[in-house]
């Protein structure tokens, strides 16, 4: 369905040296620099799948989404969606996709919401009967009736997002791109939106590519995740597998009195663990240690810690998925599978 092969995108950027002198210099001779937003991204999404496309800020997620939707032309590499190359056959291609960019809206700002749908109906050449059916379906899934007559500028963020998703679904696209569809929304609204996405995916076999910073979005919606960082793939696989691979991680949290002076060195040397098996954090007397329980059993870890110092409070937790992903970001990579 969706193939991305070695996508790369470079941008030119003007750099200015600091200070007044730099300003004068920039006035007459601006300096250019090439920034690589995506250096080598490849993945494949089969029909009907919901793919979570994640990565830290500035990883190049939006750049990739924009290449897939045909907004940006890749510097090299290519993508094919449904056999079409977005940039080559733009008009036909965009009829098959829908896109929502959470940070901006495609609705007509000053007019009642219904007007936007009427215009989009013509733009996408949806015939009357289909339009009626479609509106009924979207109404049911996204609950638009309450605000469909209000001007868009008066909608709340959650309503606006639902309206935007409906706008991108009006022409029954085969692929839906959602760039941070839950950004800035409260928990209840987030849940609403997730339900809607799931329903659309189930009922219409719509392929969905979703970027988000919210881990619950991924846990609840995605069959698979592709994680990128600094413009490169760092993980591609199911959430399940990620949990299995990194699920051995445990987190030890404890508090000591003032006399203790524990260092990372002490733990690593004492237990003979290397960097990826032990991560050490401390703030004053509070310590947080993440360790690989396959290398060192929890009991051993506990008794070692207790042998070093007196602790006030101690607990061991399973690392949650958010933690695992944070770890992956920090280490800048994990092998595929």
């Amino acid at each position, binding site marked *: 369905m969706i193939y991305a092969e070695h996508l790369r995108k470079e*941008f030119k950027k003007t750099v200015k040296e600091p200070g007044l002198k730099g300003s004068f210099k920039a006035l007459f001779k601006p300096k250019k620099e090439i920034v690589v*937003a995506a250096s080598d991204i490849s993945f494949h999404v089969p029909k009907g799948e919901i793919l979570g496309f994640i990565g830290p*800020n*500035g*990883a*190049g*997620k*939006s*750049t990739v989404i*924009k290449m897939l*939707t*045909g*907004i*940006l*032309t890749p510097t090299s590499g290519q993508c094919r969606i449904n056999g079409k190359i977005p*940039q080559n056959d*733009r*008009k*036909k291609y*965009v*009829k098959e*996709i829908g*896109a929502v*960019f959470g*940070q*901006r809206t*495609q609705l*007509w700002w*000053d*007019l009642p919401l219904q*007007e936007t749908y*009427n*215009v989009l109906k*013509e*733009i*996408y*050449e949806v015939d009357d009967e289909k339009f009626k059916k479609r509106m009924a379906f979207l109404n049911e899934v996204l609950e638009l009736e309450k605000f469909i007559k209000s001007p868009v500028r008066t909608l709340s963020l959650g309503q606006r997002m639902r309206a935007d998703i409906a706008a991108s679904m009006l022409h029954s696209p085969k692929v839906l791109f959602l760039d941070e569809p839950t950004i800035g929304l409260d928990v209840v609204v987030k849940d609403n939106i997730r339900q809607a996405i799931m329903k659309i995916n189930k009922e219409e076999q719509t392929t969905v590519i979703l970027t988000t910073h919210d881990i619950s979005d991924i846990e609840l919606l995605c069959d698979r995740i592709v994680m990128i960082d600094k413009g490169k793939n760092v993980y591609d696989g199911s959430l399940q597998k990620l949990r299995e691979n990194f699920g051995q991680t445990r987190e030890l949290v404890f508090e000591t009195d003032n006399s203790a002076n524990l260092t990372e060195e002490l733990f690593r040397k004492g237990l003979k663990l290397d960097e990826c098996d032990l991560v050490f954090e401390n703030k004053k007397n509070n310590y947080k240690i993440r360790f690989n329980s396959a290398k060192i059993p929890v009991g051993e870890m506990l008794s070692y810690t207790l042998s070093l110092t007196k602790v006030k409070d101690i607990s061991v937790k399973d690392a949650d998925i958010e933690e695992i992903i944070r770890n992956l970001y920090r280490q800048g990579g994990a092998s595929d599978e």
Partner: protein
Amino acid sequence: MKRILKIYTLLAAQNLKRLMEYRADFLTGAVSFLIDQAIGIAFIFIIFTQIPQLAGFTFPQILFIYGLSQIPKGLDHLLTDNLWCVGYFIVRKGDFDKYLIRPINPLFHVIAETFQVDAIGELIVGIGLLIYAAPDAELHLSVWTVLLSVIAVPFAAMIYTSLKIMTSALAFWIKSSGFIIQMVYGMNEFSKYPTTIYSLPVRIFVTYIIPFAFTGYYLSLYLLTGENPLFNIGGVILVSSVLFVISVLIWNKGISAYESAGA
């Protein structure tokens, strides 16, 4: 074609609906342009209190040239004003994304989206001056001259549009090209007066390079003399067609260089 018309009217209607919400603004714009025009005319008036003729043209004739030059300008202003926004901020802010994910031509979409009622100021003054000045301007009126001139007016407007397309498309490479549009568009000042007052290099420049002379003076010259339709009218059509094709090529090239905004 039918679909294009339908979408155009639909989008224009949205725009009018929006304007109705801000009636005061709509008036401000139209009145502003009207006053701007009035001042331009006052200027000509003051000059002619001192001299009987300017470069061989009488006061009514100069007014006629001035008035005719405002009609293509106003038409273009009415229909394609959104191109300014492309140059100034639509591309820079990344708002151009939306035009690229719709199954219609982005250039058409951008243009159809605004219907700039402010332009009524220019159109009223243009038409008003023509009516006022025509009786005394010793025009060469015949079915032919009038018909050809009427045909030529939309082409003259297209010269404005093409120049705006070209210059606004530069924003795809340099992010914000408002200043270039401003610069090139500003040269329409040259179209208000007979080109014979300019020195030869300037005359060549406004005829063949930034061909604003075709949007006013040559068109009027045909109505004033009835001579040389091949250059005065044919020139408008040829120049604007060539310019339009070039501008669309630049625009399309620009779209593939578009960098959006944000990460």
